[in-house]
Protein backbone atom coordinates (compact mmCIF):
# COMPACT_ATOMS: atom_id res chain seq x y z
CA UNK A 1 0.00 0.00 0.00
CA UNK A 2 2.63 2.40 1.05
CA UNK A 3 5.00 2.28 -1.88
CA UNK A 4 6.03 5.90 -1.97
CA UNK A 5 4.06 9.07 -2.36
CA UNK A 6 1.88 9.44 -5.46
CA UNK A 7 2.91 13.01 -6.31
CA UNK A 8 0.32 13.94 -8.95
CA UNK A 9 -2.60 12.41 -7.07
CA UNK A 10 -1.47 14.09 -3.89
CA UNK A 11 -1.19 17.47 -5.61
CA UNK A 12 -4.72 17.20 -7.05
CA UNK A 13 -6.04 16.05 -3.70
CA UNK A 14 -4.36 18.91 -1.86
CA UNK A 15 -5.70 21.38 -4.43
CA UNK A 16 -9.30 20.35 -3.79
CA UNK A 17 -8.73 20.14 -0.09
CA UNK A 18 -7.35 23.67 0.05
CA UNK A 19 -10.20 24.83 -2.18
CA UNK A 20 -12.89 23.50 0.14
CA UNK A 21 -11.05 24.72 3.20
CA UNK A 22 -10.96 28.24 1.80
CA UNK A 23 -14.63 27.88 0.87
CA UNK A 24 -15.33 26.65 4.37
CA UNK A 25 -13.89 29.75 5.95
CA UNK A 26 -15.44 32.07 3.38
CA UNK A 27 -18.79 30.38 3.96
CA UNK A 28 -19.00 32.30 7.18
CA UNK A 29 -19.62 35.37 5.03
CA UNK A 30 -22.04 33.71 2.61
CA UNK A 31 -25.60 35.00 2.96
CA UNK A 32 -24.65 36.22 6.33
CA UNK A 33 -27.17 37.94 8.54
CA UNK A 34 -26.30 41.00 10.55
CA UNK A 35 -26.29 39.05 13.78
CA UNK A 36 -24.04 36.00 13.62
CA UNK A 37 -23.37 35.22 17.22
CA UNK A 38 -26.36 33.07 17.99
CA UNK A 39 -27.15 29.43 17.57
CA UNK A 40 -29.67 30.00 14.81
CA UNK A 41 -26.97 31.53 12.64
CA UNK A 42 -24.31 29.00 13.43
CA UNK A 43 -26.34 25.83 13.75
CA UNK A 44 -29.03 26.30 11.15
CA UNK A 45 -27.29 28.63 8.72
CA UNK A 46 -29.84 31.30 9.61
CA UNK A 47 -32.35 28.97 7.96
CA UNK A 48 -32.13 30.90 4.74
CA UNK A 49 -31.66 27.60 2.94
CA UNK A 50 -34.59 26.61 0.77
CA UNK A 51 -35.86 23.11 0.16
CA UNK A 52 -33.28 22.56 -2.52
CA UNK A 53 -30.22 23.12 -0.42
CA UNK A 54 -31.74 21.20 2.45
CA UNK A 55 -32.34 18.12 0.36
CA UNK A 56 -29.00 18.48 -1.29
CA UNK A 57 -27.54 18.22 2.18
CA UNK A 58 -29.65 15.22 3.09
CA UNK A 59 -28.90 13.42 -0.16
CA UNK A 60 -25.25 14.23 0.36
CA UNK A 61 -25.41 12.59 3.78
CA UNK A 62 -25.99 9.27 2.07
CA UNK A 63 -22.70 9.45 0.22
CA UNK A 64 -20.26 9.25 3.03
CA UNK A 65 -17.22 7.20 3.79
CA UNK A 66 -19.78 4.50 4.56
CA UNK A 67 -20.65 4.17 0.88
CA UNK A 68 -17.20 4.66 -0.57
CA UNK A 69 -14.96 2.92 1.92
CA UNK A 70 -16.75 0.82 4.53
CA UNK A 71 -19.27 -1.08 2.37
CA UNK A 72 -16.84 -2.06 -0.43
CA UNK A 73 -14.35 -3.03 2.29
CA UNK A 74 -16.90 -5.35 3.88
CA UNK A 75 -17.57 -6.93 0.48
CA UNK A 76 -13.86 -7.25 -0.23
CA UNK A 77 -13.35 -9.06 3.06
CA UNK A 78 -16.41 -11.29 3.26
CA UNK A 79 -18.41 -11.07 0.05
CA UNK A 80 -22.21 -11.17 0.18
CA UNK A 81 -22.53 -10.26 3.88
CA UNK A 82 -21.52 -6.65 3.18
CA UNK A 83 -24.21 -6.17 0.55
CA UNK A 84 -26.88 -5.79 3.25
CA UNK A 85 -26.36 -2.05 2.79
CA UNK A 86 -28.53 -2.23 -0.34
CA UNK A 87 -31.69 -3.71 1.24
CA UNK A 88 -31.00 -1.39 4.16
CA UNK A 89 -31.21 1.71 2.01
CA UNK A 90 -34.24 0.31 0.16
CA UNK A 91 -36.15 -0.16 3.41
CA UNK A 92 -35.34 3.29 4.75
CA UNK A 93 -37.76 5.04 2.40
CA UNK A 94 -41.01 3.22 3.19
CA UNK A 95 -40.17 3.89 6.84
CA UNK A 96 -39.62 7.60 6.24
CA UNK A 97 -42.82 7.69 4.19
CA UNK A 98 -44.79 6.23 7.08
CA UNK A 99 -43.29 7.92 10.13
CA UNK A 100 -41.73 11.26 9.36
CA UNK A 101 -44.73 13.18 7.93
CA UNK A 102 -46.38 12.80 11.34
CA UNK A 103 -43.26 14.05 13.05
CA UNK A 104 -43.12 16.98 10.62
CA UNK A 105 -46.72 17.94 11.40
CA UNK A 106 -46.48 17.81 15.15
CA UNK A 107 -43.12 19.60 15.08
CA UNK A 108 -44.42 22.42 12.92
CA UNK A 109 -47.44 22.85 15.20
CA UNK A 110 -45.40 22.99 18.36
CA UNK A 111 -42.05 24.29 17.21
CA UNK A 112 -40.06 21.13 17.94
CA UNK A 113 -36.59 21.07 16.41
CA UNK A 114 -35.22 17.82 17.81
CA UNK A 115 -36.61 14.36 18.64
CA UNK A 116 -35.91 15.18 22.24
CA UNK A 117 -38.28 18.18 22.04
CA UNK A 118 -41.04 15.98 20.71
CA UNK A 119 -40.60 13.30 23.36
CA UNK A 120 -40.67 15.93 26.08
CA UNK A 121 -43.87 17.48 24.71
CA UNK A 122 -45.60 14.18 24.07
CA UNK A 123 -44.83 12.37 27.28
CA UNK A 124 -44.18 15.29 29.61
CA UNK A 125 -41.03 13.57 30.79
CA UNK A 126 -37.73 15.38 31.17
CA UNK A 127 -35.97 12.13 31.96
CA UNK A 128 -37.06 10.52 28.70
CA UNK A 129 -36.13 13.65 26.79
CA UNK A 130 -32.66 13.58 28.34
CA UNK A 131 -32.26 9.89 27.46
CA UNK A 132 -33.12 10.58 23.83
CA UNK A 133 -30.71 13.53 23.65
CA UNK A 134 -27.83 11.62 25.23
CA UNK A 135 -28.36 8.66 22.93
CA UNK A 136 -28.35 10.91 19.87
CA UNK A 137 -25.04 12.47 20.85
CA UNK A 138 -23.41 9.17 21.77
CA UNK A 139 -24.56 7.37 18.61
CA UNK A 140 -23.31 10.16 16.35
CA UNK A 141 -19.73 9.74 17.55
CA UNK A 142 -18.91 6.36 15.97
CA UNK A 143 -20.65 7.52 12.78
CA UNK A 144 -18.29 10.50 12.63
CA UNK A 145 -15.44 8.13 13.47
CA UNK A 146 -16.27 6.18 10.32
CA UNK A 147 -15.77 9.35 8.28
CA UNK A 148 -12.38 9.93 9.83
CA UNK A 149 -11.38 6.37 8.99
CA UNK A 150 -12.37 7.04 5.38
CA UNK A 151 -10.14 10.10 5.19
CA UNK A 152 -7.32 8.14 6.75
CA UNK A 153 -7.67 5.36 4.17
CA UNK A 154 -7.27 7.85 1.32
CA UNK A 155 -4.22 9.43 2.91
CA UNK A 156 -2.72 6.03 3.56
CA UNK A 157 -2.99 4.98 -0.08
CA UNK A 158 -1.46 8.25 -1.23
CA UNK A 159 1.55 7.35 0.84
CA UNK A 160 1.00 10.00 3.49
CA UNK A 161 1.08 8.49 6.95
CA UNK A 162 -0.41 5.11 7.68
CA UNK A 163 1.53 1.97 6.97
CA UNK A 164 2.37 -0.64 9.54
CA UNK A 165 5.94 0.09 10.49
CA UNK A 166 5.86 3.85 10.97
CA UNK A 167 5.76 5.51 14.34
CA UNK A 168 2.24 5.90 15.75
CA UNK A 169 2.45 9.67 15.67
CA UNK A 170 3.56 9.80 12.03
CA UNK A 171 0.88 7.24 11.25
CA UNK A 172 -1.93 9.28 12.71
CA UNK A 173 -0.62 12.73 11.85
CA UNK A 174 -2.55 13.18 8.58
CA UNK A 175 -5.68 12.06 10.36
CA UNK A 176 -5.09 14.64 13.04
CA UNK A 177 -4.50 17.34 10.43
CA UNK A 178 -7.71 16.45 8.60
CA UNK A 179 -9.49 16.45 11.93
CA UNK A 180 -8.05 19.85 12.76
CA UNK A 181 -9.22 21.39 9.48
CA UNK A 182 -12.70 19.94 9.91
CA UNK A 183 -12.93 21.18 13.47
CA UNK A 184 -11.63 24.64 12.62
CA UNK A 185 -13.97 25.45 9.79
CA UNK A 186 -17.02 23.91 11.42
CA UNK A 187 -16.23 25.93 14.50
CA UNK A 188 -15.95 29.19 12.62
CA UNK A 189 -18.64 28.77 9.95
CA UNK A 190 -21.24 26.37 11.38
CA UNK A 191 -23.68 24.78 8.96
CA UNK A 192 -22.78 27.25 6.23
CA UNK A 193 -19.46 25.50 5.66
CA UNK A 194 -20.81 22.04 4.81
CA UNK A 195 -23.73 23.51 2.84
CA UNK A 196 -21.48 25.40 0.47
CA UNK A 197 -18.90 22.64 0.19
CA UNK A 198 -21.65 20.10 -0.48
CA UNK A 199 -21.95 21.44 -4.02
CA UNK A 200 -18.29 20.77 -4.80
CA UNK A 201 -18.49 17.44 -3.03
CA UNK A 202 -21.54 16.17 -4.88
CA UNK A 203 -20.17 17.23 -8.26
CA UNK A 204 -16.89 15.40 -7.59
CA UNK A 205 -18.66 12.33 -6.26
CA UNK A 206 -21.01 11.95 -9.20
CA UNK A 207 -18.16 12.22 -11.70
CA UNK A 208 -16.09 9.65 -9.84
CA UNK A 209 -18.97 7.20 -9.37
CA UNK A 210 -19.97 7.27 -13.01
CA UNK A 211 -16.41 6.83 -14.23
CA UNK A 212 -15.67 4.11 -11.68
CA UNK A 213 -18.67 1.91 -12.34
CA UNK A 214 -18.28 2.06 -16.11
CA UNK A 215 -14.54 2.21 -16.65
CA UNK A 216 -13.28 -0.28 -14.05
CA UNK A 217 -15.50 -3.29 -14.97
CA UNK A 218 -14.58 -2.84 -18.65
CA UNK A 219 -10.88 -2.71 -17.78
CA UNK A 220 -11.21 -5.86 -15.68
CA UNK A 221 -12.87 -7.83 -18.48
CA UNK A 222 -16.50 -7.71 -17.37
CA UNK A 223 -18.44 -9.02 -14.41
CA UNK A 224 -17.98 -12.69 -15.32
CA UNK A 225 -14.26 -12.40 -14.71
CA UNK A 226 -14.73 -10.21 -11.67
CA UNK A 227 -17.00 -12.66 -9.90
CA UNK A 228 -15.00 -15.74 -10.82
CA UNK A 229 -11.84 -14.26 -9.33
CA UNK A 230 -13.87 -13.33 -6.24
CA UNK A 231 -15.05 -16.93 -5.92
CA UNK A 232 -11.48 -18.16 -6.16
CA UNK A 233 -10.36 -15.82 -3.40
CA UNK A 234 -13.27 -16.67 -1.12
CA UNK A 235 -12.75 -20.42 -1.61
CA UNK A 236 -9.21 -19.89 -0.39
CA UNK A 237 -9.61 -17.33 2.37
CA UNK A 238 -13.25 -17.59 3.50
CA UNK A 239 -16.22 -15.48 2.55
CA UNK A 240 -18.81 -16.18 -0.10
CA UNK A 241 -20.43 -14.67 -3.16
CA UNK A 242 -23.90 -15.69 -1.94
CA UNK A 243 -24.73 -15.79 1.79
CA UNK A 244 -24.68 -19.22 3.38
CA UNK A 245 -27.91 -20.53 4.93
CA UNK A 246 -26.68 -19.75 8.45
CA UNK A 247 -25.86 -16.15 7.54
CA UNK A 248 -29.35 -15.18 6.39
CA UNK A 249 -30.58 -14.00 9.76
CA UNK A 250 -27.57 -11.76 10.13
CA UNK A 251 -28.14 -10.35 6.65
CA UNK A 252 -31.82 -9.58 7.20
CA UNK A 253 -31.45 -8.22 10.73
CA UNK A 254 -28.55 -5.98 9.72
CA UNK A 255 -30.62 -4.55 6.88
CA UNK A 256 -33.72 -3.98 9.00
CA UNK A 257 -31.86 -2.72 12.07
CA UNK A 258 -29.81 -0.24 10.03
CA UNK A 259 -32.92 1.02 8.24
CA UNK A 260 -34.73 1.64 11.52
CA UNK A 261 -31.69 3.44 12.87
CA UNK A 262 -30.91 5.79 9.98
CA UNK A 263 -33.73 8.28 10.24
CA UNK A 264 -33.39 8.59 14.03
CA UNK A 265 -29.95 10.19 13.84
CA UNK A 266 -30.04 13.86 14.88
CA UNK A 267 -28.69 15.07 11.53
CA UNK A 268 -31.31 13.13 9.56
CA UNK A 269 -34.15 14.53 11.66
CA UNK A 270 -32.87 18.11 11.36
CA UNK A 271 -32.79 17.85 7.58
CA UNK A 272 -36.24 16.27 7.36
CA UNK A 273 -37.90 18.75 9.65
CA UNK A 274 -36.57 21.65 7.64
CA UNK A 275 -38.47 20.58 4.51
CA UNK A 276 -41.27 22.85 3.42
CA UNK A 277 -44.25 20.56 3.92
CA UNK A 278 -45.16 16.99 4.72
CA UNK A 279 -45.82 16.50 1.04
CA UNK A 280 -42.19 17.30 0.29
CA UNK A 281 -41.02 14.53 2.62
CA UNK A 282 -43.19 11.95 0.87
CA UNK A 283 -42.28 13.20 -2.59
CA UNK A 284 -38.62 12.96 -1.77
CA UNK A 285 -38.94 9.36 -0.65
CA UNK A 286 -39.92 8.59 -4.22
CA UNK A 287 -36.76 10.22 -5.64
CA UNK A 288 -34.05 9.52 -3.11
CA UNK A 289 -33.95 5.71 -3.57
CA UNK A 290 -32.00 6.29 -6.76
CA UNK A 291 -29.08 6.86 -4.42
CA UNK A 292 -29.39 3.21 -3.34
CA UNK A 293 -28.70 2.05 -6.86
CA UNK A 294 -25.42 3.93 -6.86
CA UNK A 295 -24.63 2.43 -3.48
CA UNK A 296 -25.13 -1.05 -4.89
CA UNK A 297 -22.82 -0.38 -7.79
CA UNK A 298 -20.20 1.12 -5.50
CA UNK A 299 -20.44 -1.93 -3.25
CA UNK A 300 -19.42 -4.08 -6.21
CA UNK A 301 -16.12 -2.18 -6.24
CA UNK A 302 -15.17 -4.54 -3.42
CA UNK A 303 -15.29 -7.46 -5.87
CA UNK A 304 -13.46 -5.43 -8.48
CA UNK A 305 -10.70 -4.88 -5.94
CA UNK A 306 -10.30 -8.64 -5.69
CA UNK A 307 -10.34 -9.07 -9.45
CA UNK A 308 -7.72 -6.36 -9.85
CA UNK A 309 -5.48 -8.40 -7.60
CA UNK A 310 -5.32 -5.92 -4.75
CA UNK A 311 -3.91 -7.45 -1.59
CA UNK A 312 -4.41 -5.25 1.45
CA UNK A 313 -4.35 -6.15 5.12
CA UNK A 314 -6.72 -3.32 5.92
CA UNK A 315 -9.87 -3.73 3.80
CA UNK A 316 -10.67 -0.02 4.06
CA UNK A 317 -7.85 0.65 1.63
CA UNK A 318 -9.33 -1.42 -1.17
CA UNK A 319 -11.29 1.29 -2.99
CA UNK A 320 -8.62 4.01 -2.74
CA UNK A 321 -6.04 1.44 -3.85
CA UNK A 322 -8.24 0.33 -6.73
CA UNK A 323 -8.59 3.94 -7.87
CA UNK A 324 -4.85 4.45 -7.67
CA UNK A 325 -4.15 1.32 -9.70
CA UNK A 326 -6.82 1.81 -12.34
CA UNK A 327 -6.99 5.55 -12.89
CA UNK A 328 -4.38 7.95 -14.29
CA UNK A 329 -2.74 9.75 -11.39
CA UNK A 330 -4.59 13.04 -11.84
CA UNK A 331 -8.01 11.36 -11.83
CA UNK A 332 -7.01 9.23 -8.85
CA UNK A 333 -6.38 12.56 -7.12
CA UNK A 334 -9.89 13.73 -8.04
CA UNK A 335 -11.34 10.46 -6.74
CA UNK A 336 -9.39 10.75 -3.49
CA UNK A 337 -10.61 14.30 -3.06
CA UNK A 338 -14.19 13.10 -3.61
CA UNK A 339 -13.84 10.46 -0.90
CA UNK A 340 -12.01 12.79 1.47
CA UNK A 341 -14.43 15.69 1.12
CA UNK A 342 -17.32 13.24 1.01
CA UNK A 343 -16.32 12.16 4.47
CA UNK A 344 -15.58 15.62 5.78
CA UNK A 345 -18.94 17.23 4.99
CA UNK A 346 -21.19 14.64 6.68
CA UNK A 347 -18.85 14.63 9.66
CA UNK A 348 -19.38 18.38 10.01
CA UNK A 349 -23.16 18.12 9.62
CA UNK A 350 -23.36 15.29 12.15
CA UNK A 351 -21.30 17.08 14.76
CA UNK A 352 -23.40 20.23 14.40
CA UNK A 353 -26.64 18.29 14.83
CA UNK A 354 -25.32 16.58 17.93
CA UNK A 355 -24.10 19.89 19.32
CA UNK A 356 -27.51 21.53 18.80
CA UNK A 357 -29.11 18.62 20.61
CA UNK A 358 -26.82 19.12 23.56
CA UNK A 359 -27.33 22.86 23.78
CA UNK A 360 -31.08 22.79 23.39
CA UNK A 361 -32.06 19.70 25.33
CA UNK A 362 -29.36 19.33 27.93
CA UNK A 363 -27.63 22.65 28.52
CA UNK A 364 -30.74 24.81 28.30
CA UNK A 365 -33.20 22.38 29.85
CA UNK A 366 -31.05 21.26 32.73
CA UNK A 367 -28.33 23.78 33.41
CA UNK A 368 -28.91 27.30 32.15
CA UNK A 369 -32.49 27.98 31.04
CA UNK A 370 -31.68 31.69 30.89
CA UNK A 371 -28.47 31.56 28.82
CA UNK A 372 -28.01 34.36 26.28
CA UNK A 373 -28.09 33.50 22.56
CA UNK A 374 -24.37 34.27 22.25
CA UNK A 375 -23.66 31.94 25.14
CA UNK A 376 -25.73 29.17 23.57
CA UNK A 377 -23.90 29.49 20.27
CA UNK A 378 -20.64 29.28 22.17
CA UNK A 379 -21.75 26.12 23.98
CA UNK A 380 -22.79 24.52 20.69
CA UNK A 381 -19.47 25.30 19.06
CA UNK A 382 -17.53 23.79 21.92
CA UNK A 383 -19.80 20.74 22.02
CA UNK A 384 -19.31 20.16 18.30
CA UNK A 385 -15.59 20.01 19.02
CA UNK A 386 -16.06 17.61 21.91
CA UNK A 387 -18.25 15.34 19.79
CA UNK A 388 -15.47 15.15 17.23
CA UNK A 389 -12.91 14.43 19.91
CA UNK A 390 -15.20 11.62 21.05
CA UNK A 391 -15.20 10.33 17.48
CA UNK A 392 -11.41 10.49 17.43
CA UNK A 393 -11.33 8.32 20.54
CA UNK A 394 -13.38 5.70 18.69
CA UNK A 395 -10.98 5.84 15.73
CA UNK A 396 -7.88 5.49 17.85
CA UNK A 397 -9.16 2.74 20.11
CA UNK A 398 -11.29 0.55 17.84
CA UNK A 399 -10.28 -1.76 15.06
CA UNK A 400 -10.28 0.22 11.85
CA UNK A 401 -10.10 -2.76 9.52
CA UNK A 402 -13.87 -3.25 9.75
CA UNK A 403 -15.03 0.34 9.72
CA UNK A 404 -18.62 -0.64 8.93
CA UNK A 405 -18.73 -1.67 12.57
CA UNK A 406 -18.55 1.95 13.68
CA UNK A 407 -21.82 2.71 11.95
CA UNK A 408 -23.41 -0.48 13.25
CA UNK A 409 -22.37 0.36 16.81
CA UNK A 410 -24.01 3.79 16.49
CA UNK A 411 -27.10 2.01 15.15
CA UNK A 412 -27.32 -0.24 18.21
CA UNK A 413 -27.63 2.85 20.37
CA UNK A 414 -29.78 5.17 18.30
CA UNK A 415 -32.43 2.56 17.52
CA UNK A 416 -33.20 2.36 21.26
CA UNK A 417 -34.92 5.75 21.00
CA UNK A 418 -37.40 4.37 18.51
CA UNK A 419 -40.17 3.15 20.88
CA UNK A 420 -40.39 6.61 22.44
CA UNK A 421 -40.24 8.46 19.13
CA UNK A 422 -42.21 6.31 16.71
CA UNK A 423 -44.42 4.88 19.43
CA UNK A 424 -45.17 8.43 20.48
CA UNK A 425 -46.09 9.45 16.96
CA UNK A 426 -48.88 6.92 16.73
CA UNK A 427 -50.07 6.22 20.24
CA UNK A 428 -49.88 7.58 23.70
CA UNK A 429 -50.49 4.17 25.20
CA UNK A 430 -46.85 3.63 26.24
CA UNK A 431 -46.07 4.88 29.72
CA UNK A 432 -43.19 7.33 30.04
CA UNK A 433 -41.44 5.34 32.78
CA UNK A 434 -41.86 2.10 30.88
CA UNK A 435 -40.26 3.75 27.85
CA UNK A 436 -37.37 4.95 29.97
CA UNK A 437 -36.88 1.49 31.48
CA UNK A 438 -37.10 -0.14 28.04
CA UNK A 439 -34.52 2.30 26.71
CA UNK A 440 -32.18 1.57 29.62
CA UNK A 441 -32.49 -2.18 29.14
CA UNK A 442 -31.92 -1.90 25.38
CA UNK A 443 -28.88 0.33 25.81
CA UNK A 444 -27.40 -1.90 28.47
CA UNK A 445 -27.98 -5.13 26.59
CA UNK A 446 -26.77 -3.67 23.29
CA UNK A 447 -23.61 -2.20 24.74
CA UNK A 448 -22.71 -5.29 26.77
CA UNK A 449 -23.41 -7.65 23.88
CA UNK A 450 -21.27 -5.52 21.52
CA UNK A 451 -18.56 -5.29 24.17
CA UNK A 452 -18.47 -9.07 24.36
CA UNK A 453 -17.93 -9.63 20.64
CA UNK A 454 -14.40 -10.74 19.95
CA UNK A 455 -12.70 -10.48 16.58
CA UNK A 456 -9.33 -11.77 15.45
CA UNK A 457 -7.90 -8.28 15.92
CA UNK A 458 -9.47 -7.09 19.16
CA UNK A 459 -11.05 -8.47 22.30
CA UNK A 460 -14.03 -6.16 22.61
CA UNK A 461 -16.39 -4.41 20.20
CA UNK A 462 -15.06 -6.71 17.50
CA UNK A 463 -18.36 -6.89 15.65
CA UNK A 464 -22.06 -6.09 15.81
CA UNK A 465 -23.56 -9.55 15.48
CA UNK A 466 -24.29 -12.01 18.24
CA UNK A 467 -26.49 -15.02 18.88
CA UNK A 468 -30.14 -14.01 19.20
CA UNK A 469 -31.51 -15.44 22.47
CA UNK A 470 -34.26 -18.09 21.98
CA UNK A 471 -33.86 -18.12 18.19
CA UNK A 472 -30.27 -19.23 18.36
CA UNK A 473 -29.24 -17.69 15.02
CA UNK A 474 -26.59 -15.03 14.62
CA UNK A 475 -28.16 -11.60 14.18
CA UNK A 476 -27.60 -7.85 14.53
CA UNK A 477 -27.34 -6.88 18.20
CA UNK A 478 -29.14 -3.59 17.57
CA UNK A 479 -32.32 -5.34 16.50
CA UNK A 480 -32.21 -7.84 19.37
CA UNK A 481 -31.75 -5.01 21.85
CA UNK A 482 -34.61 -3.12 20.21
CA UNK A 483 -36.99 -6.09 20.57
CA UNK A 484 -35.96 -6.46 24.20
CA UNK A 485 -36.52 -2.72 24.70
CA UNK A 486 -40.00 -3.01 23.20
CA UNK A 487 -40.90 -6.03 25.36
CA UNK A 488 -39.85 -4.28 28.56
CA UNK A 489 -41.77 -1.17 27.50
CA UNK A 490 -44.98 -3.10 26.82
CA UNK A 491 -44.84 -5.19 29.98
CA UNK A 492 -44.03 -2.25 32.23
CA UNK A 493 -46.71 -0.12 30.59
CA UNK A 494 -49.25 -2.78 31.53
CA UNK A 495 -47.88 -2.78 35.08
CA UNK A 496 -47.98 1.04 35.32
CA UNK A 497 -51.54 1.11 33.98
CA UNK A 498 -52.56 -1.56 36.52
CA UNK A 499 -50.97 0.46 39.32
CA UNK A 500 -52.61 3.63 38.05
CA UNK A 501 -49.33 5.56 37.83
CA UNK A 502 -50.13 8.96 36.29
CA UNK A 503 -49.02 9.85 32.77
CA UNK A 504 -47.10 12.99 32.02
CA UNK A 505 -48.84 15.99 30.48
CA UNK A 506 -49.32 15.59 26.73
CA UNK A 507 -49.27 18.97 25.02
CA UNK A 508 -50.17 17.53 21.60
CA UNK A 509 -53.56 16.62 20.18
CA UNK A 510 -54.58 14.01 17.60
CA UNK A 511 -55.01 16.67 14.90
CA UNK A 512 -51.40 17.83 15.33
CA UNK A 513 -50.12 14.67 13.67
CA UNK A 514 -51.84 15.18 10.35
CA UNK A 515 -51.67 18.97 10.03
CA UNK A 516 -50.06 20.33 6.89
CA UNK A 517 -48.90 23.64 5.54
CA UNK A 518 -51.82 26.06 5.37
CA UNK A 519 -53.68 24.49 8.31
CA UNK A 520 -54.28 26.63 11.35
CA UNK A 521 -51.35 26.88 13.71
CA UNK A 522 -48.78 25.29 11.39
CA UNK A 523 -45.57 27.25 11.13
CA UNK A 524 -43.89 27.15 7.79
CA UNK A 525 -40.51 27.65 9.36
CA UNK A 526 -39.48 26.12 12.62
CA UNK A 527 -38.26 28.43 15.34
CA UNK A 528 -34.51 28.61 15.89
CA UNK A 529 -32.96 25.76 17.83
CA UNK A 530 -32.51 28.22 20.66
CA UNK A 531 -33.95 31.64 21.28
CA UNK A 532 -32.66 34.33 18.97
CA UNK A 533 -32.57 37.98 19.98
Amino acid at each position, binding site marked *: MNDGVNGVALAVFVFFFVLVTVMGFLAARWRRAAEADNLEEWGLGGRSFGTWITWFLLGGDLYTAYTFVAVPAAIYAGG*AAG*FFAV*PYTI*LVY*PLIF*TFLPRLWSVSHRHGYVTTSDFVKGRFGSRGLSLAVALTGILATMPYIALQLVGIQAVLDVMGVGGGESTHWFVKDLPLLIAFGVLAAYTYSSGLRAPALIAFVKDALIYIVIIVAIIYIPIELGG*FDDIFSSAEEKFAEKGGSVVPAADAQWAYATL*ALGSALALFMYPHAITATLSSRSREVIRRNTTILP*LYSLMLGLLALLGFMGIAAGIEVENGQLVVPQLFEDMFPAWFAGVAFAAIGIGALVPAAIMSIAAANLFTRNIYRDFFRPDATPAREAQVSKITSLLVKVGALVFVLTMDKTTAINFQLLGGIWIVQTMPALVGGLFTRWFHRWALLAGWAVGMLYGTLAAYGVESPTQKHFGGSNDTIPLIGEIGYIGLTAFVLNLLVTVVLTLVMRALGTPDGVDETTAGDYTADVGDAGVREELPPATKAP
Partner: protein
Amino acid sequence: MITPTRVVIGLCLVVPFVAMLWVGSYDRVDPTFIGIPFFYWYQMLWVPLSTLLTCVAYVLVRREKAARRAAAEGGAAR
Protein backbone atom coordinates in the same frame (compact mmCIF):
# COMPACT_ATOMS: atom_id res chain seq x y z
CA MET B 1 -60.74 3.82 9.43
CA ILE B 2 -59.75 1.02 7.05
CA THR B 3 -60.61 1.74 3.45
CA PRO B 4 -59.57 -0.26 0.36
CA THR B 5 -57.24 2.61 -0.63
CA ARG B 6 -55.49 2.47 2.70
CA VAL B 7 -55.04 -1.28 2.43
CA VAL B 8 -53.35 -0.78 -0.95
CA ILE B 9 -51.13 1.98 0.48
CA GLY B 10 -50.15 -0.30 3.33
CA LEU B 11 -49.36 -3.16 0.96
CA CYS B 12 -47.18 -0.93 -1.22
CA LEU B 13 -45.12 -0.02 1.82
CA VAL B 14 -44.92 -3.53 3.31
CA VAL B 15 -44.04 -5.52 0.19
CA PRO B 16 -40.39 -4.32 0.01
CA PHE B 17 -39.86 -5.55 3.58
CA VAL B 18 -41.15 -9.00 2.77
CA ALA B 19 -39.08 -9.18 -0.40
CA MET B 20 -35.84 -7.94 1.12
CA LEU B 21 -35.96 -9.68 4.50
CA TRP B 22 -36.80 -13.06 2.99
CA VAL B 23 -33.16 -13.68 2.11
CA GLY B 24 -33.84 -17.33 1.31
CA SER B 25 -35.82 -16.27 -1.75
CA TYR B 26 -32.81 -14.78 -3.49
CA ASP B 27 -29.60 -16.31 -2.14
CA ARG B 28 -28.64 -17.84 -5.49
CA VAL B 29 -25.99 -17.30 -8.14
CA ASP B 30 -28.15 -18.23 -11.15
CA PRO B 31 -29.51 -16.78 -13.33
CA THR B 32 -26.72 -14.28 -13.77
CA PHE B 33 -27.16 -10.98 -15.56
CA ILE B 34 -24.16 -9.72 -17.59
CA GLY B 35 -22.06 -11.84 -15.24
CA ILE B 36 -23.57 -10.45 -12.03
CA PRO B 37 -24.98 -13.20 -9.77
CA PHE B 38 -28.77 -13.21 -9.15
CA PHE B 39 -28.24 -12.29 -5.50
CA TYR B 40 -26.85 -8.89 -6.47
CA TRP B 41 -28.89 -7.84 -9.46
CA TYR B 42 -32.14 -8.97 -7.87
CA GLN B 43 -31.62 -6.71 -4.90
CA MET B 44 -30.63 -3.81 -7.10
CA LEU B 45 -33.74 -4.46 -9.20
CA TRP B 46 -35.71 -3.90 -6.03
CA VAL B 47 -34.51 -0.31 -5.85
CA PRO B 48 -36.67 0.81 -8.82
CA LEU B 49 -39.43 -1.63 -7.81
CA SER B 50 -39.71 -0.22 -4.29
CA THR B 51 -39.48 3.29 -5.71
CA LEU B 52 -42.42 2.49 -7.97
CA LEU B 53 -44.42 1.12 -5.05
CA THR B 54 -43.67 4.22 -2.97
CA CYS B 55 -44.81 6.38 -5.90
CA VAL B 56 -48.12 4.50 -6.05
CA ALA B 57 -48.55 4.96 -2.31
CA TYR B 58 -47.76 8.67 -2.69
CA VAL B 59 -50.35 9.18 -5.42
CA LEU B 60 -52.98 7.26 -3.44
CA VAL B 61 -52.30 9.21 -0.26
CA ARG B 62 -52.68 12.48 -2.16
CA ARG B 63 -55.85 11.35 -3.86
CA GLU B 64 -57.37 10.20 -0.61
CA LYS B 65 -56.52 13.47 1.05
CA ALA B 66 -58.07 15.46 -1.78
CA ALA B 67 -61.23 13.33 -1.58
CA ARG B 68 -61.41 13.86 2.16
CA ARG B 69 -61.04 17.62 1.77
CA ALA B 70 -63.74 17.71 -0.91
CA ALA B 71 -66.08 15.66 1.27
CA ALA B 72 -65.45 17.93 4.25
CA GLU B 73 -66.13 21.05 2.17
CA GLY B 74 -69.21 19.50 0.60
CA GLY B 75 -70.48 18.67 4.08
CA ALA B 76 -69.85 22.22 5.27
CA ALA B 77 -71.63 23.75 2.25
CA ARG B 78 -74.82 21.87 2.98
